[in-house]
């Protein structure tokens, strides 16, 4: 039953693709020659926009040289054509895309270590420089008037338009499947939170670079197609100002949605055409794009999301909530074993403030260690330091007897996962896609369903944007558990839940070591929860370990009572 459903869902994009090709064929036969030519231009722009949608819409960066990548593609195709290279136009087109992708990686490498704004500066610099250089150099074959030959089967305009449609549809399919796969989840994650991405064991730089490289490759393919359309490529088709306009159009239309990329391309060609017919200077087109772009950014939405909201409003749903009421099956818990995570002499200084001073902590195998302490005791700093977000921390961390060093993503892959106090869950994904992204391995539908059901989380099909914040953070916990790390650090996981659900959540948490084979370090303010879950407790106060040991002993320690409760006797 489920298999059949999955088969249908995987088949849908291919059916849509076939319909699109059929529509394209209909247009190529039905329209008159001038419109067929315009259609080609729209397809070329559509592929470019699709690429921009990946880098700006999915990964949330500013890329201002999409047409420079087009120029790289066009240059490659023209040069191969002039040299009469073997393989013919379609092979050249692919090579043009690859060449642009390589240029994209070279440009992106220095820019993508951190802020997206650096990418904007680099790409604008490249666009401006390439603009001037192209005018001086001209494309290969232009001086000799050697125009690019279309493939024999597609030599006239109508059939070349059909070819262009097929290329566009293939690009759309590629983007569709990329966005649903690991890369796509990583793009969404990196756009929302770099820390969250690194904590999932995914390299921030690689995610950004893949987005930029895919975008550049599509740009290159679009430039190559354009060369086949016009025969001789000219620098005027690849100016910096047009790259700017294309970027603004991508922002305005929401080009990360495939249908909107196509619609944006229709605008790209249609608006200037209409202005021409009405006798208005064509530069007004860019003015309109600019104004609408500012409007879209200021209102935080775009055409695509607006259309979809209207669509969804008919099926308006309440935000999905947790359902922790149903009692889960109890599993025989294992006795805690020897320490699996050992931290020795951990110190962190921020300037002259000692946030942590020589802290020792041990998480037992199959156990749950509670870390408590007043606000400002250094609990979250501890998690940051262990998981590698504070490279300047002193001390040693050992996981399963091996020293744990390196970047957060390396540590996550080595089997140490963490959750965040803040919401670091990308709202653009569905629950299931997010779980797969966090787990970094193949998950069966049953595995996902069981884990979600165990914690009472919403179904895997639910978009995370429709899940309330408390439940979102539990989905994060589930995802990290499915990754089967050795140790999971939980930073106040119950903070977003209503109080009556804390106990139910605690019951589930107690079974985690036995059910998932993961040892847990739990930071929590709710002492009832700590009491019901933790075998051992470490108390932090002003960055030092105040007490550590079995639960009953620690909670009865007068020093702990004084630090944590003031003088009052609450326990």
């Amino acid at each position: 039953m489920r298999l059949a459903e999955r088969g249908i869902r995987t088949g849908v994009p291919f059916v849509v693709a076939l319909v699109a090709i059929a529509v394209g064929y209909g247009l190529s036969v039905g329209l008159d020659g001038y419109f067929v030519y315009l259609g080609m231009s729209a397809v070329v722009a559509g592929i470019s926009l699709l690429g921009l949608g990946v880098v700006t819409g999915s990964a949330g960066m500013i890329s201002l040289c999409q047409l420079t990548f087009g120029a790289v593609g066009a240059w490659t195709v023209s040069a191969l054509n002039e040299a009469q290279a073997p393989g013919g136009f379609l092979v050249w087109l692919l090579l043009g895309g690859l060449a642009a992708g390589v240029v994209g990686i070279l440009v992106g490498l220095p820019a993508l270590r951190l802020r997206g704004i650096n990418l904007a500066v680099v790409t604008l610099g490249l666009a401006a420089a390439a603009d001037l250089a192209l005018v001086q150099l001209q494309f290969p074959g232009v001086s000799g008037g050697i125009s690019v030959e279309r493939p024999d089967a597609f030599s006239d305009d109508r059939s070349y338009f059909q070819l262009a449609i097929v290329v566009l549809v293939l690009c759309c399919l590629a983007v569709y499947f990329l966005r649903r796969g690991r890369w796509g989840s990583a793009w969404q994650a990196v756009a929302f939170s770099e820390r969250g991405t690194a904590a999932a064991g995914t390299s921030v730089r690689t995610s950004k670079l893949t987005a930029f490289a895919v975008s550049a490759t599509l740009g290159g393919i679009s430039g190559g197609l354009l060369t086949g359309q016009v025969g001789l490529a000219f620098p005027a088709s690849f100016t910096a100002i047009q790259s700017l306009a294309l970027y603004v159009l991508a922002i305005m239309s929401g080009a990360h949605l495939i249908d909107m990329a196509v619609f944006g391309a229709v605008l790209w060609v249609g608006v200037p055409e209409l202005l021409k017919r009405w006798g208005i200077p064509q530069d007004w087109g860019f003015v309109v794009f600019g104004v609408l772009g500012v409007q879209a950014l200021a209102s935080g939405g775009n055409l695509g999301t607006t259309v979809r909201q209207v669509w969804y409003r008919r099926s308006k749903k309440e935000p999905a909530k947790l359902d922790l009421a149903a009692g889960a099956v109890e599993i025989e818990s294992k006795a805690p074993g020897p320490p699996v995570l050992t931290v020795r002499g951990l110190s962190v200084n921020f300037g002259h403030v000692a946030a942590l001073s020589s802290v020792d902590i041990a998480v037992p195998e199959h156990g749950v260690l509670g870390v408590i302490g007043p606000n400002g005791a250094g609990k979250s700093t501890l998690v940051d330091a262990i998981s590698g977000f504070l490279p300047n921390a002193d001390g040693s961390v050992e996981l399963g007897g091996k020293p744990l060093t390196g970047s957060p993503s390396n540590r996550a892959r080595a089997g140490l996962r963490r959750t965040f106090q803040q919401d670091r869950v990308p709202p653009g994904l569905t629950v299931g896609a997010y779980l797969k992204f966090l787990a970094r391995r193949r998950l069966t539908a049953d595995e996902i369903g069981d884990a979600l059901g165990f914690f009472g989380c919403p179904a895997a099909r639910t978009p995370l944007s429709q899940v309330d914040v408390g439940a979102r953070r539990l989905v994060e916990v589930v995802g990290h558990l499915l990754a089967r790390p050795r140790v999971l650090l939980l930073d106040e996981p119950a903070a977003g839940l209503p109080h009556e659900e804390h106990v139910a959540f605690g019951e589930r948490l107690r079974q985690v070591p036995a059910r998932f084979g993961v040892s847990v370090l739990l930071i929590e303010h709710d002492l009832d929860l700590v009491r019901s879950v933790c075998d051992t407790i470490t108390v932090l106060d002003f960055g030092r370990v105040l007490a550590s040991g079995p639960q009953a002993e620690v909670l009865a320690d007068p020093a702990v009572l004084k630090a944590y409760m003031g003088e009052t006797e609450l326990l």
Partner: protein
Amino acid sequence: MLQGALAGLAAGGLYAVLAVCLTLMSRLVRVVNFAQSATGMFGCYVAVFLSVDWGLPMWLATIAGILLGGLLSALLGWIVSTWLAEADTGTRSAVTVAVLLLLISLSFILFGNKPQPFHPILDGPAVTVGGVVISQVTVVTVALAVLVAVASRIVLSRTPAGVQLRALSERPTTAELLGIPAKRLSIAVWAVTGVVSTLVISIVAPSQSNDATSLAMLVVPASAAALLGGFRRLDLAVAGGLGLGLIQGAAAQVDGLSVVRYFLPFAVIVALLLWSQRKEVWDAAR
């Protein structure tokens, strides 16, 4: 070679002034303003239009243009600080990209896409040292770059408004809660950088390639210069601007470097980014 380098110094002063403006914007109002030089370009074009078509005296037209540049920038600042007060730097900067496109297209519509008939405000050599000529424009732009950087420094460190600005840039919410008029101060920063950019472009434009696209794209070498100071340090921004101008001027004298010359600012940007990103920095404090 030396003559070439010194000829490039005029452009260097221009880059330095714009880089100081970019650095101030980035530090004080969390924006990398891609429309920085486009605003200046638009103000200058209006000035030329006023003097050529309306017959206003040169000085009056220039002042009107400079004021308009400031107004445009203030308007943009008002939009950003009204609707994108809480947004991140990336989104706020994206707005300026849209404005850059808008201003270039508008100037094409209003003034055509040919270089404008500028009347030089400053003309002729200032000093001749051992056969090497230094023009008045060079002296004024370099002086202006140093002046603007020093003035900004003094305002930020010695005046109450400067202290408020620094508070606003480091802890916007806390500053607002203390009763600092965030929006007014932000718009003032936008207006001042708009005036300064228009002023310096008015001085240099007559002796540079002054079509709309070239002038608007001056933001590229300017941001290369600003990157030397990491968009934070004014002194390094000035040094970067002057240095880049000198190198470009010297490279212009060498025939073999003609195409390579265009890529100089880009190469500087890439090199500086590689250097500045040795260490890992995260997107949020925690």
